[in-house]
């Protein structure tokens, strides 16, 4: 397999694949963080999670068009506005969905799954009616284009680096919100013991809504970040949903750190295998390995020690 390559070239190949894996890792982390909050913390199976990401992506698309049309001078900075908008719009839709649908179904997890699947179909159709069936892409501002070469053989695309930095930032913010803020401790209290949390004066219904909205908002930001590295179509959300759920379950549903670790493992193994096998077989092997490991160790890689 390696005939004709020098050692340096092989090293560069692994470095490039490793970097591609890091971008995939960032994508997985962004996708999974929101779901880890909704599914891992709240136990709600949100099959429409992918559609919330696509919502964020379309918000970014619209924002970039608005900036390009009306204030081209500020075009370089549109992305930051888009990200904030994506967060709040996705969170708003999420809060509405929680109020209208999810809160009636907390004790019926399997039914939540079906209902949110229905929601995902409706959102897909809305996207298709509004934005058309074709995939759309955003124009990247100049400063995000191109790449810089570390060596002759290793080139690092700037948009990839940007997405990675964004992932770090978002993970850190989520950590601050959930583990360092008063709101976060209330939210975790509701998750761990609803009755006691209610008894000490936390409005559990409101916490549920806000936590769900936070998860959806992060999905929106993730979608916004995706526009940096790929195009967006109305049904793209469905493609992500299996990966996302597997990342969350594989990491151990209750553990955010586990989610990040499992995103790392899955993305690195997939991108490394992609070099040796065809893309589809790499994906099959990765998913299959994850499924087999989950069958052997259903609690995931990192599980909190809970008394059930």
């Amino acid at each position, binding site marked *: 397999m390696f005939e004709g390559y020098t050692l340096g070239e092989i090293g560069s190949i692994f470095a490039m694949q490793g970097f591609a894996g890091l971008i995939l890792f960032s994508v997985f982390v962004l996708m999974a963080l929101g779901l880890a909050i909704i599914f891992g913390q709240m*136990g709600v*199976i949100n099959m429409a999670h992918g559609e919330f990401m696509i919502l964020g992506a379309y918000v970014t698309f619209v924002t970039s068009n608005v900036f390009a049309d009306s204030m081209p001078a500020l075009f370089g900075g549109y992305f930051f506005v888009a990200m904030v908008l994506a967060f709040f719009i996705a969170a708003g839709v999420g809060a509405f969905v929680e109020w209208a*649908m999810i809160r*009636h*179904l907390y004790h*019926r*997890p*399997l*039914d*939540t*799954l*079906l*209902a949110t*699947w*229905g*929601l*995902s*179909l*409706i*959102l*897909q*159709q809305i996207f*298709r*009616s509004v934005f058309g069936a074709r995939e759309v892409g955003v124009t990247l501002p100049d400063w995000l284009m191109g790449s810089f070469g570390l060596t002759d053989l290793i080139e690092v695309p700037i948009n990839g680096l940007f997405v990675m930095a964004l992932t770090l930032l978002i993970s850190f913010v989520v950590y601050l919100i959930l583990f360092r803020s008063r709101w976060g401790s209330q939210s975790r209290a509701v998750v761990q013991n609803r009755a006691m949390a209610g008894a000490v004066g936390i409005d559990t219904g409101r916490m549920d809504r806000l936590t769900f909205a936070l998860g959806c908002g992060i999905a929106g930001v993730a979608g916004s970040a995706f526009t940096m590295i790929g195009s967006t179509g109305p049904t793209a959300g*469905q493609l992500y*949903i*299996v990966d996302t*759920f*597997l990342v969350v*379950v594989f990491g151990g549903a209750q553990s955010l750190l586990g989610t990040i670790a499992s995103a790392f493992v899955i993305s690195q193994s997939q991108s490394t295998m992609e070099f040796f096998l*065809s893309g*589809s*077989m790499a*994906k*099959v092997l990765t*998913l*299959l390995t*994850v*499924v087999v490991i*989950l*069958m*052997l160790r*259903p609690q995931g890689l990192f599980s909190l020690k809970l008394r059930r």
Partner: protein
Amino acid sequence: MTTPQTATAERSFWIGFTILAALILLVLPLMLDVFRLNLVGRYLTYAFVAVGLVLCWGYGGILSLGQGVFFGLGGYCLAMFLKLESSTPEATAIQSTPGIPDFMDWNQITALPWFWEPFKSLPVALIAIVVVPAVFAYVIGVAMFKRRVGGVYFAIITQAIAAIMTILIIGQQGYTGGINGITDLRTLLGWDIRTDSAKTILYFVNALLLLATLVLARWILTSRLGRILVAMRGKEDRVRFSGYSVANFKIFVFCVAAAMSGIGGAMFTLQFGFMSPSFVGIVPSIEMVIFAAVGGRLSILGAVYGALIVNWAKSIFSEAFPELWLLAMGGLFIAVVMAFPNGLAGLYSVYVAPMLPRIRAWAMSTRGLPARDTDGQISKPGVTHAR
């Protein structure tokens, strides 16, 4: 034990069964032309899956989002046999390797892969239709249920399996026909399955098999096994503490559901002459759940109606208003969960069934006959049959 209630339930099931049998064996064939009848036949193949889902989801509490995998496995087993039959060396003489299926030749494969070899024989293929999905389900079931994985995790893992299966089939197109699937199937033991008369015959074979499946499902549900399933759904721990192996019952019912789906897939292949990964993936698998949910997750007869009605609505909608179909389907998912969780069968038993005795009484009185008691059943005190 036969109590008045179970006797009534028994009787109303068989009445419902007779009505359904009359509908699919008499009414629909008389009303519809061959093309439409063939479509109904397609919906009925999904009904196999829906009946299986009523058993494992409605009664067993196991929601599988991967039933399309078993549907596909059954379908592919038969499709492989049919493909080999139509790929005789004479029929494929223009290929660089005659005697192998055309898509293999297109993908530069020069010999029949080993796992295709057994499917040269019809008996093997027929057995495989039931056994392959059941064995696959058994492997999944043992791995999951023995470790007490259930509910949501099971649903997610089966969904992942459906995704893996689709990617695998599409990726390995030299061995599986890829995204187009195995197409252009013409004959079964020399009998042309594409003619109108063959399609009509296959419709009836399909319908009879479905009715047999319903009888089997009913038999399972009324046996002690069915009661354990219901008990498990209610309080799994209590059943376990009573000394039953919960995992084994779950594995069993999951395998039965898989085998039923496999038969449905095989009947699909026979009636339509192809099988493709578009029946295996996440979307078709979850749609099959909605058939069962609309019909009523606790009613095996309802599942058949659910499959018929949802698919019929789908073909009407997607012909007339293609852009509305996804909205309608999504709304249906939400409505069936939020508003009527027991589906059509639930609506029937809440709104229609209580009116039946009154209607019957009214019909009797207009004919000057004495009305019978409310459930039309005269219970015999002192006569109970212990099982």
